[in-house]
């Protein structure tokens, strides 16, 4: 028996019929067609499916789609409306923080959540903020550098992006 779910997905009101045991990552990828969110481990270990649910960073593989009814979901596609990269995404490109790219959408969402909470994060806060996201290519150094860079730039612009 399908369940009706209303979501505000990257700002747009959407309605989906979901299965009772369907995960939000499936709804986002298969039903909304937003395949930027990646399904990695499927058990909350790797963070590749990270999205913001009502502003909070969560693994979309561990959220029951039916439970998200009435919630706001923000995915990596929401960072770049109209395909224009955000400053955070540009910093990832500039710093070489992307290699195979599979972890990147989740990393971006974790970094976005971090920068919303901490305008000037310390190195430790950045590493803590990304602790739930695995990258097997970069060794993290360049990802941390990208986050630090964008935080510094935003601070120099008085918090504006």
């Amino acid at each position, binding site marked *: *028996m399908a*369940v009706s779910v209303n979501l505000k997905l990257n700002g747009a009101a959407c309605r989906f019929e979901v*299965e*009772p*045991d369907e*995960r939000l990552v499936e709804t986002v990828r298969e039903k909304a067609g937003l395949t930027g969110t990646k399904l990695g481990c499927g*058990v*909350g*270990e790797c*963070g590749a499916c*990270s999205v913001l*649910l009502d502003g*909070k*960073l*969560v*693994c979309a*593989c*561990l*959220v*029951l789609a*039916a*439970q998200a*009814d009435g919630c706001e979901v923000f995915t990596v596609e929401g960072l770049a409306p109209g395909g224009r990269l955000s400053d955070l995404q540009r910093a990832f490109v500039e710093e070489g923080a992307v290699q195979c790219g599979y972890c990147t959408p989740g990393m971006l969402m*974790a970094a976005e*959540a971090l920068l919303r909470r901490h305008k000037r994060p310390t190195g430790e806060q950045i590493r*803590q*903020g990304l*602790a*739930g*996201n695995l990258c097997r290519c970069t060794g993290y150094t360049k990802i941390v550098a990208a986050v630090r860079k964008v935080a510094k730039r935003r601070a120099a612009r008085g918090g504006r992006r």
Partner: protein
Amino acid sequence: MPSFLSLTSLEDVAEMLWAEGPTCALVAGGTDLLVRAPRPERTLWLDISRCAELAGIGLDAQGRLRVGALACHQEVVEHPLVRRHARLLGLACASVGSLQIRNRGTLGGNLGNASPAADTLPALVCLGASVRLVARQGAREVPVSELYTGPGQTVLRPDELIESVRVPLRRGRAAACFKKAGQRKGMCCSKASVALDARVRPGLRLVDVRVAMGAVAPTVLGVPAAEALLEGQRLSPRLIAQAAEACVAAARPIDDLRSSAGYRRAVVGALLSEGLLEILERLRRAERRAEGLRRARRARGRGRR
């Protein structure tokens, strides 16, 4: 495939559990449920995440800290009442999973799943916390230390659910530590964990000492022998080593995929040592600071005369 039902009042949930308890799987954050599917006879996934009565953190009528079953780990970490009166619980919740998991997984779920490795359990046992269980017929309170009968096994009846956790407030200067050993620092499940809570007295002494261990026995384990050693005594590296030895002696670990019994036994002592040595260092620093202040005050006093 299961069916899904979302209920928004505690009364309706209790009614449903009374009628259909054995066939229901309660869904709060879902971080355990979606990793390890419930038994097939649980055909109704009952969403309780919208029950306002199960949410929130505050003080109850008896002045105890009340943490609603639906409070997620991160909410506990950040709450000012927890920081002030139950710092140990905040330390344990902060060590759970990643931010993604802490934003979703609930304290009630961590308690209800009854994993021997659950990080919040040693902390709650040290703090003398109780769990309030609600059923259609009425409510009862069970101390966290008496909630478990084995791995994944609790004293909850099929018609009961966890409403909240109640933690007595402990006044006075606290010393607390939560240490766990895992595969790595972040985002890991405990191979072994130790929690300690105490009040600080002058002369590097701890009183009201509570020590509990996780993942080294079928259920969370208090360590009265270590508590007795530490109670009221002046902390020293030698005393700390003795208390750690008491933890090693009390542990009853098993070999499993996460670790071996031998490693668990050894590391649980090392964890208590590490935590207590840090506490000792903090207390010494505080004493030196206080001594410096006293001296400065005396010097000023002399200057005026």
